């Protein structure tokens, strides 16, 4: 599918927003479910892009920038694969090969992110000089320049894909044999596990493993929605925290705190 000039400008603009958010991590324009949808919205291919966004979101659930570590780049992966999906013009049928393209893109994005974060070091040195002068304006300017640089990190690759155009993209997608695309979509079903594994490794302690077992067993009951499971989880967390406090004060031997605030108030009277 070919896009007109206005659509192309909007696509690059959405890419810019996603690039900004890739570093800011605030409004979450870079999350696949939002980024792909926006690309779909401006190109008029909403539904396939939403489905692509949902699939990529599942894969990217556990991708987070923790501390100084850099996660695979969800922004480039979702923007570029959505543009390729739109240009390929295969609609829903193109979703699984777009997912397969997204993963190498996430790695390429990682490199761009590291370059951008290194360049930002030069910018804060400029801020140091501005601070010597007591100039608020210059610091603001460099901060905004930093954000724009992160926007361009995605906007430029997006513009390049648009420049290559629908023809080559389509040819590339058509040249992929079905055993490969089917196999990749099977792989895509399992890749989701990597994100969860990252999150579990971060959170798991001996103390909370029993909750993992409970969750796994209860999840087999398909009538329970995720919201219902969330309710059970919150309730269990509250109960556990309260009970562990009571146990603690009991073992301590003394103290009037029974863990029962109402009881304590009554006792005082």
């Amino acid at each position, binding site marked *: 599918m070919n896009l007109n000039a206005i659509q192309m400008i909007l696509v690059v603009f959405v890419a810019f927003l996603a690039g900004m958010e890739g570093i800011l991590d*605030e409004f979450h324009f870079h999350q696949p479910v*939002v980024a792909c949808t926006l690309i779909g919205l401006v190109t008029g291919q909403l539904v396939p892009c939403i489905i692509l966004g949902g699939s990529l979101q599942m894969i990217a659930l556990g991708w987070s920038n923790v501390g100084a570590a850099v996660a695979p780049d969800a922004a480039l992966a979702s923007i570029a694969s959505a543009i390729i999906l739109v240009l390929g013009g295969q609609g829903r049928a193109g979703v699984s090969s777009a997912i397969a393209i997204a993963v190498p893109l996430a790695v390429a994005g990682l490199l761009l992110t590291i370059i951008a974060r290194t360049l930002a070091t030069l910018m804060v040195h400029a801020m140091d000089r501005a601070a010597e002068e007591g100039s608020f304006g210059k610091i603001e300017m460099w901060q905004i320049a930093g954000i724009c640089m992160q926007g361009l990190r995605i906007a430029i690759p997006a513009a390049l894909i648009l420049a290559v155009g629908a023809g080559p993209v389509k040819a590339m997608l058509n040249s992929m044999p079905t055993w490969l695309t089917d196999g990749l979509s099977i792989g895509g079903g*399992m890749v989701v596990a990597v994100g969860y594994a*990252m999150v579990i490794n971060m959170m798991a302690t001996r103390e909370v493993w029993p909750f993992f077992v409970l969750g796994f067993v209860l999840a087999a009951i398909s009538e329970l929605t995720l919201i219902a499971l969330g309710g059970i989880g919150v309730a269990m967390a509250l109960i556990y925290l309260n009970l562990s406090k009571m146990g603690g004060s009991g073992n301590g031997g003394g103290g009037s705190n029974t863990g029962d605030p109402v009881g304590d108030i009554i006792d005082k009277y």
Partner: protein
Amino acid sequence: MADQIKLSKSDRIHVWWRSQFLQGSWNYERMQNGGWAYTLIPALKKLYTTKEDRAAALKRHLEFFNTHPYVASPIVGVTMALEEERSNGAPIDDVTIQGVKVGMMGPLAGVGDPVFWFTAKPIIGALAASLALGGSIMGPILYFVVWNVMRMAFMWYTQELGYKAGSAITDDLSGGILQDITKGASILGMFILPALIERWVTVDFSPVKVSTIKQASGAYIDWDKLPAGAKGIKEALTEQKAGLSLDKYKVTTLQDNLNQLIPGLAALLITFLCMWLLKKKVSPIWIIFGLFAFGVIMHVLGVM
């Protein structure tokens, strides 16, 4: 002192708005320092008027800073309170301000990561993605609205809390509240994750047929003996409701057997394998490529 400078609510709103761009100049040297100084500028502008004071304030806020971007807000609040007192003559030196920042950023990052990145984001993301997979626009809208309302409200209220409590908040934080929040979030997260694994990691061994049994007559719908037309369809539906099988041969796949044993077992094992590989310092990217390759190979072999 008659002419105390106070930060107004509108100053604090400006700071709050800017705090959303905290990570804009994230760099490998001092991480969030540029964004931190940028965030505090509306406050510093009001509190300090001479060039020397401004330069000193900017320099002290360009020191190393890094935390989870949302829980920076209470630290912003406390720092504003401290700067306000300092500009009004209170004896607060650079070391105190830097000490409060560093003292708060570590423990708070320890709360922000499990609460936002490991609990809220996977849960909201999975919910939105499951709607989006069906092609519903509600998925992305839900994600965007819920995430941003939650985030903005959290940042504003904790910034106000920090500002009002001032330096007193550091005493609170050393108490048990932070630990409780962190532990509660890990419990919720650890409870929800296996559900996400079971429902969204798809490992399907359906092409592998374990057995094919010819069923006794009367256990399946005999399509040849049904009356023609709509009557036949009605008859077939009635028979199926009565528990008759659709086919003459009962096919049991490996997947059926696995589902009977423990649903989601294969997905769980894949997750454990990934966890083990990650602990062995294998890069997640290589694991992802490996799984794609595994999927293609297994598909070509006709196992998946």
